C-alpha cells in the first residue's frame, strides 16, 4: 500500500529535475490519435452521404462554434478552430488516463493533464493568445483597459490578469490529479485486506473504483469544457465590443 502511493507521488514529484518522459510520450500518442481520428472523419466527407460519425462530431463542433460566436461576436469566428482543438485535445488527454497502460508496465499511460507540465503551458498559451490578439485588434489601447474604471485600480486589474493562467492551470491539474489519487487510494484499500471487526472493508469497497472512474470521466469532460469556455470568456474580455 505504501509502496504504491509512494511510487505515484515520486512519479509526479521530480518537477525540478528530469523531464517527465511518460507525460511526453502519452501526449504524443494522444496527438497522433486525435490527428488520425480527424483524418478519418475528414475522409468520410468525400462521399455524398452523411454518416453517423459526422453527425456526432458536427454536434460537438457546432456546440463550441455557437458558444464562441455568441460570446465573441463576428470577431470570434477566426478562433473557432482553436477552441475546438483545445476542447478535443484536453478531453482526450483527460480520458486517456482511464486506460491502464502504466499498470501493465508500459512507459506511457496516465493522464498527461495530471501533470503541471502539461496544464501550465496550455494556460500560458491561452494567456498569451488573449494578449497578442487583443493587441492586434486594439493596438496600444489594449493596455489602457488595465486602468479602466480608475487608475488606482491598476494593481488589482494587473493581479486579476496574472492570476487567470494560474487558476486555469491549477483547476485542470488538481481535478485530474485528485481523481487519479482517489482511485489509487481506494485501490490500495482494496488490496490491503482491511478488517473492521467482522466486516471485510476491502471486499465492501471493491465496487467503489468503478464509480470513481465514472466520476473521473464526468470530471474530465466538464473540466475540458470549462477550460475551453474560460478561454472564450478571457478572449471576449480582451477583444469584446464592450471595451
Amino acid at each position, binding site marked *: 500500500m*505504501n509502496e504504491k*502511493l*509512494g511510487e505515484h507521488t515520486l512519479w509526479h514529484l521530480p518537477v525540478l529535475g528530469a523531464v517527465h518522459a511518460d507525460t511526453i510520450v502519452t501526449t504524443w500518442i494522444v496527438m497522433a490519435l486525435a490527428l488520425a481520428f480527424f483524418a478519418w472523419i475528414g475522409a468520410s466527407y468525400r462521399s455524398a452521404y452523411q454518416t453517423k460519425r459526422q453527425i456526432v462530431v458536427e454536434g460537438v463542433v457546432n456546440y463550441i462554434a455557437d458558444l464562441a460566436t455568441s460570446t465573441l461576436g463576428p470577431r470570434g469566428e477566426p478562433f473557432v478552430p482553436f477552441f475546438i482543438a483545445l476542447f478535443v485535445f484536453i478531453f482526450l488527454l483527460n480520458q486517456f488516463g482511464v486506460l491502464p497502460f502504466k499498470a501493465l508496465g508500459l512507459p506511457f499511460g496516465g493522464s498527461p493533464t495530471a501533470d503541471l507540465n502539461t496544464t501550465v503551458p496550455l494556460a500560458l498559451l491561452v494567456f498569451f493568445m488573449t494578449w497578442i490578439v487583443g493587441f492586434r485588434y486594439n493596438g496600444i489601447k489594449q493596455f489602457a483597459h488595465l486602468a479602466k474604471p480608475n487608475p488606482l485600480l491598476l494593481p488589482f486589474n494587473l493581479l486579476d490578469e496574472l492570476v487567470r493562467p494560474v487558476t486555469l492551470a491549477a483547476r485542470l491539474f488538481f481535478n485530474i490529479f*485528485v481523481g487519479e489519487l482517489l482511485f489509487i487510494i481506494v485501490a490500495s484499500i482494496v488490496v490491503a485486506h482491511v478488517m473492521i471487526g467482522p466486516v471485510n472493508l476491502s471486499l465492501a469497497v471493491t465496487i467503489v473504483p468503478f464509480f470513481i472512474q465514472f466520476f473521473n470521466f464526468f*470530471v474530465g469532460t466538464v*473540466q475540458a469544457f*470549462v477550460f475551453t469556455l474560460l478561454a472564450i470568456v478571457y478572449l471576449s474580455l480582451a477583444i469584446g465590443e464592450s471595451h
Partner: protein
Amino acid sequence: MSSEALVAAFTLLAFGIIVAGVAFGSAVGDGIVASKAVEAISRQPEARPNIMTFMFLGVGVLEAFPIIGLGLAFYMLLVVANVPAMLAKMAGH
C-alpha cells in the same frame, strides 16, 4: 509521546479538518447551484439545455477550489509529512 507521533497526529487532524471543510463548502455551494437551476427550469422549461450548460459550467468552476484544497491536503499528508511511512515506522518498534 514522541515528536514523530505528535507530527503524525496533528497532520491527520489537519487532514480531517481540511476534508471536512472541503466537503461542507462544496456540498453547500453545489446545492445552491442545483436548487437555483431547478427553480430556473421550473420557471422556464424551454430554456433547459441552456440552464443545464451553465449549471455544469458553474459546478465545474466552483468544484476546482475544493479539489485544490483536497490536493494540497493530500500533498501535506503524503509528501510533506509522510504519515503512512511514519505510522509504519512507529508500528515497527
